[in-house]
């Protein structure tokens, strides 16, 4: 499973929505996730991918988070 699919699955689980409805342009807010939900999700992803994610570079979309995880994992 690639990073996007893993992140979409984790997001869907947390938001209680369908993973296939999530695209890189989906905003966390559209998934009814507040700032602390996102912070907690990022902590989970850091554990899963063994990376450190800089939250200041995120623009509120799923795509920006996927890019961060991929960059940090290089």
């Amino acid at each position: 499973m690639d990073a996007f699919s893993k992140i979409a699955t984790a997001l869907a689980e947390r938001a209680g929505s369908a993973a296939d409805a999530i695209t890189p342009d989906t905003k966390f807010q559209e998934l009814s996730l507040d700032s602390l939900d996102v912070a907690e999700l990022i902590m989970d992803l850091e554990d899963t991918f063994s990376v450190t994610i800089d939250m200041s570079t995120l623009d509120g979309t799923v795509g920006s988070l996927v890019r961060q995880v991929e960059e940090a994992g290089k």
Partner: protein
Amino acid sequence: MRILGIGRALPAQAVSNAQLEQLLDTSDEWIRTRTGIRERRIMREETVTGLALGAAREALADAGLHGRDLDMIIATTALGDDLFPSIACLVQQELEADCPCVDLHAACTGFIYALDTADAYIKSGKARNVLIISAEGLSRVSDWTDRGTCVLFGDGAGAAVVGLGEGLLSIRLAAQTGRALLYSAAPAQSCPFTPQNGDGAWGIRMQGQEVFRFAVSSSARDLQAAADMAGLSIADADWVLLHQANMRILQSVRQRLGIDAARMPTNIHRLGNTSSASVPMLLYDLYHSGLLQPGHILALSAFGAGMTSGACLIRWDKPAPLNLRAPAETLFFA
């Protein structure tokens, strides 16, 4: 070291989320879902020193000791009524104590740092009985135009008298520089040789998401480390008491460490975030609920500005007080 007595003092005025809705563009629902807070106590006529004194007197009475029996007073606070003298010095005379007095500043982790300091003095033979007072008046530091932070904080004081004994099983402290995450600048000053001293205004500034991550990760790490040092696991703790910063932090730590909700009491719904006072005040509520029994293992964890954090394990040996002042139904569980 063991805990000989506990005390608490709160301002009389409770301020509900509904009252804050009248002052700020916020809502009860927003505050409750993001923090778990329903109301907090705010000082009117009370002072931080007065709260400290009230908590100290109750702790001494609970320990069956007099101020003259104290070998040291350590107070922790973000800001007392004055920049100096220290709160510890201000309460000394009222308590009729004759001993060294000092304020210790480790932000919200102050009580755990003070426990460690007291333990070191007791172990070294320099002190037998140490009074720790964590007294906070963050309502006077908050920026009441900032809806993101002022809704979080409340005022109050918790105190513990500690003495010789084997109750403290382990303790772990940590710190790392991180001003940008959470700070309150000193107010502007008038020195003619310095154009701009400090950031100019009171107010607690916080990067909420980053502080959340720090709090959850440091608390989980410290609790695990403290359990390892004691040769126990977190599952051995009958009660896990976290700094009452935010219900979401409590829940996240609880899930990460696999702690049963019934073992993680909280009073954040009634008192909000009271910085270093929150751990001793929650311990007071648990003690006065009658749920805390001799032989129980307590795990305490706090985290805050600095960034500082710390956790410890304590074997409790005091029977529940005869006069329970905090009925069990007033505690919630994370």
